[in-house]
Each structure stands twice: as structure tokens, then as C-alpha cells.
């Protein structure tokens, strides 16, 4: 187990280094001179003074070799210093941290909501496979999977904010504000979770050890609880962590529709403004968290199914 953990940690560190290179380079993927673009964003003058551009380039250290810039950035990053926003001159961490916490709350709310519905629905569908209830659940899950957020969001606003007036139509200042965006964001994962739960549970219910447990006199529900759940949760957990990691970057569509100050909107505006440090810092945070989530998921595999510890460790 110790060797397993050491090996995992090593892999984690290497992955993070690769991630940092990606996060650092991504803002430079676009064309053009960053200093020129920044100046153009600040002053609304098409004809820029070259000396001004040169001065800014020097000030930001953009004239140095890229690897030098990378190592300096990496060093600062390790100490928690992600630099200052080019546009607002606020420390990047102070912009990213609140946005990220908003996006994480929203993602967790949406995914937990999805799970709360998907698990029972998927299990019921698996135990009634081919029956009417299964057909209804399958139809609903397929509908949920194909419901885009840019459609669900406005529909929810129309119903709950405009007509019924139960919930605020946008903003972010309390629990009531999280309900609609979380609901809108939860539908697609809910559909996928239901389908994966159903498939996994169907497979597990046909497993020999289920028959063996029944042969000892365990009732069907008890067998399901004792031997079905744990074995069918692996694929669901995988999908959950996949979605969670994906939603760390926020959902631009949902955050724009509901006017939520999350990561999606922050990155979106930073890219528009060519705010390199914010993009880099934001990406670094998101990617690091994604890698950490993946590692935790892998560790949980071993907890859920000890046989995996041996083969993958």
C-alpha cells in the first residue's frame, strides 16, 4: 500500500509539471504580440506607438526566452503567486479563488442533484429490465441527456422566475440563487448517471456471486444492498469524477444566462481581453484540481474493489 501511494504521488508530480507547461503556453497559442494586444485593449487607438509596445514588453518580461519566463512563472506559482491581471492589476489569485469556489459549489450542487435522482432510477430500471418502468426511465434519461443547457436554462427562468416568481432569475447571493442553475446543469449528467447505473447494475445482477448470495437465503433487496451496490458503483464514480473535473472550468453558458461570477465567465472574459496571467493562473488551478480529483478517484477504486489495488498498483 505504501509503495502504491509513493508511486501514485510520483505520477501526480510529473502530471502536474506537464499540466503547468500546458497552462503556461495556452495563452500564447493565439497569434500576435501579447504586448501589442494588451495595449490595444487599454487604449482605443489602432496606430500604436512602437516604443510604447517595447516598453510594455520589457516591463512584462516578454522579451526574455520563453523557458526563462516559464521557470520564473513556475517558481512564483509554487509560492502561490500567480502574478497580476494585465487588465485590472488585481492579483490573479484574488480573482481565481472566488470564481473557482463559485464554480465548485455549482458543480457539486448539480452533480449531487443528478446522483440523487440517477442512482435510484438506474437501479430500479436494472431490476425491472425490459419492463414498462424501465422503458419510461430509459426514455426520460435519454431526454435528459439531449437537453442542452442553453435551452433548459431560459425555460427554467421563464417558469420559475418570470411566471411563478419563486426564484431569482440571476445573480449569486444566496442559496435560492443556486437552485435553477444547478437544476439546469444537472439534467445531462443525471441522464448519463442513470444510464451508467442501469448498465452497471444489470451486469452485476447477472454476476455469479449474486446467485451465490441468493443461494444462502439473502432476499433480493438484501443481496442488492450487500453485493450489488458496491460492485456497480465503480463506473458511476468514474463518470462522476469525469463530470466534476469537467465542470471545474465552470459552464460559460449557464454562468452567462444566470449571471454567475464563476470560472467560466472569468476565463471567457480573460481570453477576450488577452489577460495572460489570469488565463495561466486559472488554467493551472483547474488542471491541478482535475488531476487531484482523478488521483482521488483512482485511490477510491482500490477502496471499492481491492482486487484493483493489486493489478494497477
Amino acid at each position, binding site marked *: 500500500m505504501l509503495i502504491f501511494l509513493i508511486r501514485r504521488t510520483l505520477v501526480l508530480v510529473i502530471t502536474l509539471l506537464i499540466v503547468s507547461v500546458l497552462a503556461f503556453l495556452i495563452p500564447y497559442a493565439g497569434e500576435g504580440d501579447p504586448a501589442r494586444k494588451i495595449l490595444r485593449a487599454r487604449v482605443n487607438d489602432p496606430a500604436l506607438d512602437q516604443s510604447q509596445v517595447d516598453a510594455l514588453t520589457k516591463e512584462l518580461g516578454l522579451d526574455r526566452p520563453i523557458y526563462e519566463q516559464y521557470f520564473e512563472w513556475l517558481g512564483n506559482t509554487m509560492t502561490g503567486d500567480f502574478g497580476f491581471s494585465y487588465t485590472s492589476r488585481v492579483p490573479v489569485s484574488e480573482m481565481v479563488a472566488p470564481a473557482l469556489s463559485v464554480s465548485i459549489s455549482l458543480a457539486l450542487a448539480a452533480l449531487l442533484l443528478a446522483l440523487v435522482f440517477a442512482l435510484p432510477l438506474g437501479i430500479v430500471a436494472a431490476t425491472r429490465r425490459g419492463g414498462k418502468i424501465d422503458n419510461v426511465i430509459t426514455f426520460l434519461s435519454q431526454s435528459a441527456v439531449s437537453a442542452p443547457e442553453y435551452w433548459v436554462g431560459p425555460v427554467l427562468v421563464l417558469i420559475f422566475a418570470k411566471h411563478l416568481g419563486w426564484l431569482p432569475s440571476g445573480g449569486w447571493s444566496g442559496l435560492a440563487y443556486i437552485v435553477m442553475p444547478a437544476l439546469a446543469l444537472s439534467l445531462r449528467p443525471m441522464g448519463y448517471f442513470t444510464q451508467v447505473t442501469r448498465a452497471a447494475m444489470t451486469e452485476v445482477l447477472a*454476476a*455469479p*456471486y449474486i*446467485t*451465490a*448470495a*441468493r*443461494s*444462502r*437465503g*439473502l*432476499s433480493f433487496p438484501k443481496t442488492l444492498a*450487500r*453485493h450489488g451496490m*458496491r*460492485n456497480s458503483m465503480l463506473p458511476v464514480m468514474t463518470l462522476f469524477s469525469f463530470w466534476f473535473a469537467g465542470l471545474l472550468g465552470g459552464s460559460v453558458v449557464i454562468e452567462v444566462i444566470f449571471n454567475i461570477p464563476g470560472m467560466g465567465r472569468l476565463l471567457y472574459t480573460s481570453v477576450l481581453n488577452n489577460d495572460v496571467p489570469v488565463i495561466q493562473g486559472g488554467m493551472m488551478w483547474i488542471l491541478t484540481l482535475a488531476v487531484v480529483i482523478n488521483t482521488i478517484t483512482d485511490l477510491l477504486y482500490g477502496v*471499492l*474493489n*481491492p*482486487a484493483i489495488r*493489486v493489478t494497477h498498483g
Partner: protein
Amino acid sequence: MSAAPMPIDRGMPASSFGEPLLEIKGLRVDFPEVGDGPAIDGMDLTVRRGEIVALVGESGSGKSLTALTMMGLLPPGAQVTDGTALLDGEDVLSMSPKRLNKVRGSKVAMLFQQPKVMLDPTARVGGQVAEALRRHRGVGRREAKARVVQMLRDVGIPEPSRRASAFSYQLSGGMAQRVMIAAALSADPELVIADEPTTALDVTVQAQILDLLRRKRDELGLSILLITHDLGIVSTMADRVAVMYAGRIVEDGTTADIFSSPQHPYTEALIKASLLEADRGKLFSIPGSIAHARAMERGCRFLPRCPKAAELGISDMCSGAEPTLHTCGEHEHHSRCHAAPEHAEAS
């Protein structure tokens, strides 16, 4: 034998077999959606108290399906369409699901062919051994734990307290089958249905597991329905043998009678096949393949593969009517072959 912790007194010595414990009569199991006719078609079989009965036949003859039917665990699509199966006087086939849950594990238990996959890969072995015990005997968690260790030791598992918290992947096939035996016996069932319990194990382990089963029979007065295709196992284990072909019993009798004077050409062929195999000589195989029940509506199901019918010139009789399972010798020896002589039942 006296090393048993507490032999259950079932009211009779293990040597003289008592009254019937399991009585299958006219069992028919169908797969309606497949439409190939019944997979088990009019099967009769009796297992007495304390007796080991071997159910023999090639793959596809309906042996495993019989086992699952007796457990009330029919595979999806299968349906019992006729017959009764009295277990201690109570028909298993018409039990309520609730009653079945009560009976499984406490009156009848099952052993399987692939012991490793029969254990939940994510659960500790001990918990599974304790399941029947806790469910049927109302034993609490802590006491169950102690009993599990004792039971694991009893089935020959070294370091039982450590093994109780092992997972199935940490066990060899033989160990896993020992665990399954402990789990099956934990609530003192009267009948154990063992479906090819040693087929997946290597030969030395096979012998150990069979020894263990026989010892348990002697200690506890268990009845065992041993399903196998291996006549070598039959000859060392069984008190009586029932030979199954195409969903029916074609011959049954004491092990000695079956081996010394088989009265059905299929039994003869099976014995011949296994003897030659044991001699490492030329392999003998029965020509043709097993018939579907529906394909043979009137005549004998074995006729297409039978050497005897032509030899004796009775093919017309064999294709005209299916022989009944009639008494053909002493010690309740029955055969479903026209060529087997009728034997007056000694009263």
C-alpha cells in the same frame, strides 16, 4: 469422524439411508422464448437422508438447470411447467419467494463450479461465510465472526482468522471452494446441491475437496446431490447414480450396480468413454450430439446415437415408443431402455 464439533443428530446413522429428503417427480422446465422444447422433461429423482447421489450426464443434458431449479433460482427465461419437488415433504416449486428465502441456506445449500467468481470480489470472505448463519440462525455480528473462524478452520483453511478478512482474489481455487463449503454449511442445511464442485480445480485439490465433502456428509448426516460428468468422481463418492440424457433420467441405481451392469446404452457408453480415457488409450466418444427434447417426440431420445438398437434389431420398437423408466434389477435399479429386462419388483 468424532472430531466433528457437534454432529447434528438427524435421527439415523449415516450408513443406512433414511426416508427420502428430496423427491423430484415429473419435473419439466421450459424456455418458452427459445421454443426448443423443454430442457428438463419429466425428470424423476430421489435423494434420501444421508445419501450422496450423483447426477451424471454430458453438457446440455440439464444437470445444472436441475440444480438451480431445486434452489428456486431459475435463470431468466426458464419456467417450471410441470412436476413437483418435495424437499422434506414441502414442494420447492410452489413455495412463495419469502419461504424460498427461508429455505435457501437453511435447508438446502449449493456449491458451484467456479468458486472464485462465486465470491463477491469487493467483500471480505468472512462476511459471506456468515451470511446464512446470521440470516437463518439469528446469530449476532460478533458471535458470527467467531463462528466463521471456527468454520473456516473446520474446512481446512490455514490461518482462518486472517483468511476471514481476505478477499476472493487472494484465494486459490481450492481455498475459494473450501470457503464456499463453509458458507454453504454455516446454517446447517440438510441437502447440499454440488454442481461440478471440483471441475475447475486441479486434480490433487479435487481429491481434497471431495474428501472434505464426504467427511461433512459423515459428520452431519448431510444429503448431497453431486452433479458431475466425471465418472471417476462418481465411483469414489456416490452411493447412488442417476444418469441424465436430454432432460430425463435414463438410468439410476446403486453405484456398484451402475458400474458393474449398466442397463442403458448411454450409461455403457459413458463408462466406456471414461475407462478408455483413464487408460490413456484411444479416446472413445459417443457419436452424434445430444438431442433436443422436441426433436424426439415419440421414440427413444438416445436412438440416433444408440449402437444397441441396430445390434439387437429393435430399432422399430425404439423409434415407435419411448421406453419407460422401469425396474431392471435389484436394489432399485431402473433403466429407460427397451433392451433392459423387466425385473419384478421384490417386495
